[in-house]
């Protein structure tokens, strides 16, 4: 059973790797049947002699030992700089399409911030003996950025779509850096990632204010069970049902503590889910040959 579970997990992991940064939940919504079929086929081969399943034809694939991956401070710093480059690259791509002056100024400022963040992470990487990662994260690019940019372009480059994407990207960055804190071995590095993480959180809060139907603060439930209604901003627009279901409400301040949950936003009438980075998207130190 353990071998079958490992094969199932391997099939799921491989499938998710191909889809890049898409969350496991979204993957199931998109291609659950394909995954289940692969799992059944993978499970069939091992116990063909005694199982009542349909036997597998052909040769059993040769497996290759998997490389050992170390999640250390250098890996996390490399991942941090890679994510900053995703933001720089995406925003620079979008900047020429933005006609709204306020949004243009915000994105321009954020590009400058992300450049500073990238430099800081790259410098720290070298200080701790690693090779700096000075380009965009390929998993994030394939799984989040490129699909979102295509949706934006296909929708005519609407400001609302640009804002939604930027909000999602900043949320991913803010939460990813937060998730790094207990993984980093040095308190000085934890502080360093969070002075950046705080900046990304501010970016997200600024952009959230520009999203249709967004609210300043998530409502709180008081001790008596009543709800303190958060003040609402007035957004002019119609309600649209998005493909994939409407995303949850967006708040500038999501709650008492910043959660580590995917950002879900609507872009060009499609709901996308952007998950924070994890072991499948870290920029590991290449194994020495």
């Amino acid at each position, binding site marked *: 059973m353990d071998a079958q579970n490992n094969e199932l997990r391997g099939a799921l992991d491989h499938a998710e790797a191909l889809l890049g940064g898409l969350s496991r939940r979204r993957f199931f919504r998109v291609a659950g049947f394909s995954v289940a079929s692969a799992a059944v086929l993978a499970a069939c081969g091992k116990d063909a002699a005694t199982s009542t399943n349909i036997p597998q034809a052909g040769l059993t694939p040769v497996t290759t030992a998997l490389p050992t991956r170390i999640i250390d401070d250098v890996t996390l710093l490399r991942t941090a700089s890679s994510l900053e480059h995703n933001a720089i690259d995406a925003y620079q791509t979008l900047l020429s399409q933005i006609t709204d002056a306020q949004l243009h100024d915000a994105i321009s400022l954020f590009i400058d911030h992300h450049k500073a963040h990238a430099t800081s992470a790259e410098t720290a990487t070298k200080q701790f003996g690693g090779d700096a990662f000075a380009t965009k994260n390929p998993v994030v690019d394939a799984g989040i950025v490129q699909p979102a940019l295509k949706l934006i372009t296909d929708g005519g480059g609407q400001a609302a779509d640009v804002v939604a994407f930027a909000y999602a990207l900043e949320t991913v960055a803010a939460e990813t850096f937060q998730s790094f804190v207990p993984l980093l071995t040095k308190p000085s590095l934890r502080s360093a990632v969070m002075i950046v993480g705080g900046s990304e959180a501010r970016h997200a809060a600024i952009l959230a204010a520009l999203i249709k139907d967004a609210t300043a603060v998530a409502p709180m439930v008081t001790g008596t069970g009543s709800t303190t209604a958060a003040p609402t901003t007035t957004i002019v627009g119609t309600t649209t049902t998005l493909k994939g279901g409407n995303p949850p409400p967006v708040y500038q301040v999501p709650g008492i*503590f910043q959660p580590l949950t995917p950002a879900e936003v609507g872009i060009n009438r499609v709901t996308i889910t952007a998950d924070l980075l994890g072991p499948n998207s870290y920029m*590991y130190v290449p194994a020495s040959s």
Partner: protein
Amino acid sequence: MDSNRLRRLAAEVDDEHREAMRTIHDDLASALRVPDDASANRRSFLRGAGFSGVVVAVGGLVLSLDAMVHAAAAQTTSTTTGDTTTSGAPTTTTTLPPRQPDDDDRALLGFVQSLELTAVAAYGIALDSKKLSDVTAGIAQIFQAHHRQHAQATGSLAGPAAPNIANGSLVAEFGPQFQAAATEKDLLQLAFEVENAAAATYAAALAEITGTDPAAVLASILPIESRHAVVLGQAIGLDIGDMSPAVENLTNAATPAKFPIEKG
């Protein structure tokens, strides 16, 4: 300046907080109890040890530290480097820092708690002034509640080192300014500065805290203070650059040396 009013306000926060903390201490006592022989070297690493199921109960909201600390580890395990995609078993760090707070951590967490309780008192002054509109008063109430919960969380982690009172030095510094604020905008500007100071203080504290469990909690609070600052900055019409610096400004951080906890 009405110093008696300030002292009464700080005392009210103190009483309110003590009542809220009464059951939390009992709930967390066994989870956070440190073994008698825990005078471990600050540099010792405890692989796989510690309280893997530590739960911080904050005003009825139960936070699983495991969920907060190990969110990244719950991700899938396939990796992509260059053109090669591989999948494999989860990886682990080769050396692990301690999860639990040590005595120095608890002292610092206690200071942070006093800062949060000061923020609670400051919003209390703002709300009592009746100078806030309905919208901003609603926001101030929620932000005050957030800080109250932050105080409960940091106080729980501080354990016996939690002072459970507002920071007297900070109350003396900011209280008169809040009292003297003539307009809503003046109050919101002060609140904006308090939130910036709080975010910076959390960042500074992270550079000192050795336990990863309290570090994870601090890392979940810092962004909220930052977001508070943005909401307030927008309410008073600040330029985007003024409410969104490239990085959190550590010069705004409050420290125990600069603002010792002393009962007002």
